């Protein structure tokens, strides 16, 4: 079994998986159809202000699992759907940003700056084309980097990191995520700490359940779906609902603009956009590869760098950034789209999720079983097939199929979703809440799960009120079990050495970096104040 054999098996796993139907004798696998569904859902969801990719992924996941079951056969269709949503949502977010000056997803905020002015000038469809071109390019670039880097990084980790270093690496990722997400390192670390506290209830290696206060309901700990969906989705819904309560809904009619001039992208225009797309794709990919830094920062950085270049190079009379420059849209969209592929580098090679979308991919893998994202996936065994590696290459194939869909029908579908912005929030939010609770009950099938989820929802709400990002909480909840396990193993493997974290240069480096990152970001914050 060489590398090429594995790649080929991965591709086959997608195309020859369980057959859904056939066209002219050509079997169409269920995975392909799920990627397409996911992609279209993603665009629609991304185009709806108030919804975002993670919400759709959260609601879809338990439902998909109940349809496909817990067999390894379910992995590719379910994860293919999620990857489709992830990719679709990134391009969908640009639609309301450009057409109505309301970003569909937070990272599309920068797109409004040039997108809406272009709409006002009657160039709406052209702006959408620019967004689509930049987004699809950035995405494809980032996927290529992922496929080259993830196996390599995983092999490196597996070859050089022992139990103590793996523990130190997890500590480093948690402190990094705590320090960089959500603005304030103190709040980030608090959120991380709460996540760890929650995951340690009822779990652990001892037969006696810890911190359950004698309650049978807490014996098994909190199911991962309740905490993740509760804090991320239900918390957000509560917050949006109260915001809605506070603000009077604007009932004004939206202005409409007539198309003017050529809406197509000429070859020369694409040539002008390319340098912006390229830089932003690099920025987005680099940022995406670090766990915890989301696409919003990538978009901001891509836009800023693009603006500096544009100021130097723009033609006489061409619009500035902020006045409807296509380059501005391209710089933003390429940057935020190129985050999504690179974000899977830490997921697949280390098992560490960096953003909400990655959280749901890990959740899918954990719920279905048979695929444990992490270094062990990329074991190129010679004599027996490593099924996890086949799944990994299947996922890469799924990403490229989604890219192909993006290039072909993505633009077309995207330009038709402008209508989504008209869905009123007072109908949307309760629907999301109901669907989320149903989804949780479908997966857990016990009523406590609903109470847990609502409790976590309340926590998520309070965190949002206090401007504490819930993402470190969720990532800590996912990594907490792994952290405890690897720390116990490192302790045992070193023959009961309590200082195992300081036993090798690599782990000392990781620990020093975890402390430094928090101190550094706390100091920088102070200076900014």
């Amino acid at each position, binding site marked *: 079994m060489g590398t090429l054999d594995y790649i080929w098996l991965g591709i086959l796993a997608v195309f020859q998986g369980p057959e859904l139907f056939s066209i002219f004798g050509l079997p169409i696998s269920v995975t392909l159809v799920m990627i397409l569904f996911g992609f279209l859902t993603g665009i629609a969801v991304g185009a709806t202000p108030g919804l975002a990719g993670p919400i759709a992924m959260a609601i879809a996941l338990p439902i998909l699992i109940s349809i496909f*079951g*817990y*067999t*390894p056969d379910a992995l590719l269709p379910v994860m293919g759907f999620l990857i489709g949503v992830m990719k679709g949502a990134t391009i969908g977010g640009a639609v309301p940003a450009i057409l109505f000056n309301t970003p569909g997803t937070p990272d599309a905020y920068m797109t409004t700056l040039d997108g809406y002015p272009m709409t006002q000038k009657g160039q709406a469809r052209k702006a959408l084309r620019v967004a689509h071109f930049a987004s699809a390019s950035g995405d494809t670039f980032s996927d290529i980097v992922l496929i080259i880097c993830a196996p390599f990084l995983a092999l490196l980790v*597996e070859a050089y990191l*022992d*139990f103590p270093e793996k523990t130190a690496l997890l500590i480093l990722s948690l402190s990094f995520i705590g320090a960089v997400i959500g603005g304030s390192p103190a709040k980030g670390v608090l959120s991380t700490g709460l996540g760890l506290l929650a995951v340690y209830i*009822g*779990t652990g*290696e*001892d*037969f*006696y*359940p810890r911190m359950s206060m004698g309650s*049978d309901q807490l*014996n*098994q*700990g909190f199911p991962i779906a309740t905490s993740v969906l509760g804090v991320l989705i239900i918390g957000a819904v509560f917050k949006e609902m109260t915001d809605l309560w506070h603000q009077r809904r604007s009932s004004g009619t939206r202005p409409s603009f007539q198309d003017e001039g050529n809406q197509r992208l000429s070859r020369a225009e694409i040539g002008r956009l390319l340098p912006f797309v390229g830089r932003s794709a690099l920025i987005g990919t680099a940022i995406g590869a670090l766990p915890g830094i989301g696409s919003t920062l990538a978009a901001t950085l891509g836009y800023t760098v693009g603006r500096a270049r544009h100021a130097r190079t723009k033609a006489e009379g061409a619009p500035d950034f902020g006045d409807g420059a296509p380059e501005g849209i391209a710089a933003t969209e390429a940057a935020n789209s190129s985050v999504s592929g690179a974000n899977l580098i830490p997921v697949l090679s280390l098992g560490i999720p960096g953003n909400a979308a990655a959280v749901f991919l890990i959740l899918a893998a954990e*719920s*279905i*079983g*048979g*695929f444990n994202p992490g*270094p*062990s996936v990329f*074991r190129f065994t010679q*004599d*027996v097939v490593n099924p996890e590696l086949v799944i990994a290459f299947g996922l890469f194939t799924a990403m490229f199929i989604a890219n192909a869909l993006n290039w072909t029908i993505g633009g077309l579908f995207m330009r038709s979703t402008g209508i989504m912005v008209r869905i009123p929030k007072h109908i949307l939010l309760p629907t999301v809440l109901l669907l989320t609770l149903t989804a949780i009950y479908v997966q857990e*099938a016990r009523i406590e799960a609903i109470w847990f989820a609502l409790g976590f929802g309340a926590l998520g709400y309070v965190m949002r009120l206090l401007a504490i990002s819930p993402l470190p909480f969720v990532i800590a909840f996912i990594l907490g079990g792994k952290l405890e*396990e690897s720390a*116990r*193993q490192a302790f*045992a*493997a*070193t*023959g*009961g050495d309590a200082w195992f974290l300081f036993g090798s240069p690599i782990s000392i480096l990781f620990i020093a970096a975890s402390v430094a990152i928090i101190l550094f970001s706390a100091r920088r914050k102070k200076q900014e104040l």
Partner: protein
Amino acid sequence: MKRTLKAAIAAIGLAVSATAGMAADWTPPGPIKLMIAFRAGGGADTQARLIAEALEEKMGWKFIPEQVTGKGGLNMANTLKGQPNDGTAIGLAVTETFGYNMAAANAGMSPEDFTGLTTTAGFQMGIVAPSGKGWSSFEDMIAAAKGGQDIRFGVMSPKLADLAYLLGKAQGVDFNIVQVKGGKAVMNGVTAGDLDVGFMAGIQAKGVASGDLVNLASGLSQPLVQTPDAPTMADLGVDFDSDGYFVFVGPAGMPDDARKALSEAIAAVVSDESSKAGGLVKKAFGGSATIMGNDLTQLMSDDYSNAGTLMDAASE
């Protein structure tokens, strides 16, 4: 008159079926909740789901499989205990759950709170090292340990950790015993070089056959089928062993007809190697082993009462 007649016929029918022990006549009063004490997607989970699938097809019963994992099966046992005992709630765990784990947890549960239905398969528990280590026998490893090498011994349960400890004690060496989650993790650790040796409950078969792994010893009271020359635990000076089975159980006091029908139906499926479930049991666990009825009750209660001796020995 007609009604009395009907009732009489029904009563006679019932009496006949009860005396004849016609287990096949039993049908579950509703869908059967199947609690699986193993992580989704693993061999044990797949086994449970395939058995349920086969029974749905064969008997027309309806199953609702659900994962209740953690605490070495005790979470599942605890949940199952409070369920109705009419055969509508059963669970799959290992005998170790009702033996060592239940005794160690000391959480107010004993095998008497459950009705044993049937075991499905035993474990071919070996003590396995990668061939790259250059050890061809258990003594080679002990010699390496005595030569000053740290030996990381991978285990997947506290009971196995005790056994590994006793093994080291009997041989005069100290292993660094690392507990990981599940046999697959032991195998991954051993192949990746994070662990030097470990207990594997059957998944080593392919690797041993291809020469990548070596069964240094049998963790059982009997020699391994694949490597009959490897010493057993007793040969190595340990009075305990890791003999164990996958076992289906229900809550205590399950009526005999339900118990009989369920256990016989499950046993029939796993013993049939042409069925998907039977095929898996053959492939992954070396064939079915179905112990049921009083034999199983005895086995479970022995495991439970012997656990204390093992714990005492390991804490000496």
